[in-house]
């Protein structure tokens, strides 16, 4: 259906740039997140959304108004929002008697819902409650997942992938070592997931690698997994597929050995060894007497003028 939308050609350069930013690319943009409040969102849930918005700025959009939708029943309004704001991650907060302090975290593929996991907030400590210095906005966080449940259980594995996708931030080629200040630590234990954010202090140690001291700051959540809506295996595999052009090109004819020596391989054509230019050995040079004898045999007609 995409060519039918592009039938209307953009009339300004700005519109053209806007459309180019949203079209599928080889190397994709950083994923944006949309934070939505449900029909009856209470104070806790609102505070959680505001804190996560602060963590994920500027790659997040916080919707101020309440939207009366149910993500697990009807996904069309979520998909509509995703298309309008070009966000592929979402966090939907709501509250009712059956599911108190509910958070639905999810992601989209091609503007359709891929995965959705519903989490219940048991305890929440906000950024405001911990009065200490915070790190600057837009810091790329370090992510640590502790617990074997994150690998054993399929739902937890998807949750881990979702959380990495959500909090990872832009992909950068290099990072300033002194600027690694923010840490998000997730521990999974007995059906609960503890999310803690710490400010990292690099202290002097005897050697190059600094000693780490942590100071708790930022939102900390105790979560319980409720319902899930995971994508089918083939859809998930399709979304993971990367185009071939992104694969790193293999350098041919170069090999390394155990000791670190690099070997190159050159392919030569067949050489006529008779015509090889070797060193001139004066002793092997043909003497004039031998030469004339040969000449005499080869061309008898030629005769030296007397």
């Amino acid at each position, binding site marked *: 259906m995409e*060519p039918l939308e*592009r039938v209307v*050609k953009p009339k300004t350069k700005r519109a053209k740039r806007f459309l180019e930013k949203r*079209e*599928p*690319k080889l190397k*994709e943009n950083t994923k944006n997140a949309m934070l939505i409040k449900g029909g009856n969102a209470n104070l806790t849930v609102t505070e959680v959304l505001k804190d996560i918005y602060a963590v994920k700025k500027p790659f997040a959009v916080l919707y101020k108004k309440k939207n009366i939708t149910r993500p697990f029943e009807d996904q069309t309004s979520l998909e509509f929002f995703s298309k309008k704001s070009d966000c*592929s991650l979402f966090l939907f907060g709501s509250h009712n008697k059956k599911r108190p302090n509910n958070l639905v975290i999810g992601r*989209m*593929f*091609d503007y359709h819902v*891929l995965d959705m996991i519903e989490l219940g907030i048991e305890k929440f400590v906000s950024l405001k409650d911990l009065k200490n210095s915070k790190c600057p906005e837009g810091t*790329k*966080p*370090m*992510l*640590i*997942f*502790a*617990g*074997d449940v*994150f*690998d054993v259980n399929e739902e937890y594995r998807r949750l881990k*992938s979702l959380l*990495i*996708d959500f909090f*990872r931030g832009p*992909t950068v*080629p*290099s*990072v*300033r*070592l*002194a600027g*690694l200040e923010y*840490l998000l*630590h997730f*521990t999974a234990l*007995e059906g609960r997931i503890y999310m*803690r954010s*710490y400010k*990292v202090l690099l202290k002097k*140690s*005897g*050697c*190059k*690698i*600094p*000693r*780490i*001291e*942590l100071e*708790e700051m930022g939102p900390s959540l105790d979560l319980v997994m409720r319902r899930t809506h995971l994508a089918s295996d083939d859809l*998930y595999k*399709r*979304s*993971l*597929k990367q*185009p071939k052009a992104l694969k*790193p090109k293999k350098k041919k004819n170069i090999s390394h050995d155990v000791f670190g020596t690099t070997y190159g391989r050159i392919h030569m054509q067949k050489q006529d060894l008779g015509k090889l230019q070797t060193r001139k050995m004066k002793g092997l040079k043909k003497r004039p007497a031998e030469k004339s004898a040969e000449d005499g045999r080869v061309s008898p007609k030629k005769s030296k003028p007397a």
Partner: protein
Amino acid sequence: VEEVLAAAEEQDAEKRRSITVEKELELEFDLGNLLALDRNPPAAAGLRGACPRREALLRALARDNTQLLVARLWELPAERAGGAGGPLVAQLPEPTFRLPREKPPPRPRPPTRWEQFARLKGIHKRKKTSLVWDEQAKEWRRRWGYRRAGGDPARAWLAEEDQFARLRREKRERVARNEFNRLRNLARAHRAGTAVPAEPLHPTGHQSREELGHVARVARVSTASLGRFQPRLPKEPVEPPSRSGGRKRRFDPLLGNLSAERSRQLELLRDMGSKKPVLDITRAVNKQLRQEEAEAAAAKGKKQSKRGKRGRRQQRVGRGKKSG
């Protein structure tokens, strides 16, 4: 000497003790994402307990894991950005953890008619200069826009025909033609992407005799031996001709028309002997292009009748306004 060495080693070990962490299972690292995965089961007993104790335990666990991650990050190749006094910057590798894409990878769009033609003829795009030499004005003028080379288009008012109307009409035609070609290219690209599926047989009712015959034939050929050993119904006609493969795989009988065979062989020898190539590439290309243009004209005729009303209405309104 040995004592000195031992003392030095002990000092080193002391220093390193502050940054070493003992773990049962090694952590998995993805430095491109600044990610560390700890597979060790956390101490359940402590974490089940009261809040402050739990927080302290979580913090200790986090500290250990971060220490390991930071140790790995510090091992990366680092350099000083911006000269000697700049900050220490480490080169991160590519992220290894596989995450799903946001949108499917872009599909290559099929080339437009002009692109195909240009590729056939070997035409390359040439960069145009922004200024052109104007002979009349004897100076460099822009290619288009205010005070362009080639004189003021409105100045040709001496001729009989209404120049303004002519220019407007030509521009309208050009724009319409361009728009039409663009839409046609889009439609072609869209069609190329989604292949039209074969019409299946209607379940009941509207099944024509030809349709049934066609479907029966297709079903017959869809066996492993391509329908050769399928039993036939008593009155079903025998149909070997399709197996002969159509026009190109028709072979003449061995001892048939001798004169025809002779003339064919002589023609073949003549073609082999002649220096001119049998297939004239330019002519073939032009013929193909003309054929495609004819097709396009037929399609255009159909499209005009579809868009005709809208197109004609627009043109009429435009003409009416300007002439009045």
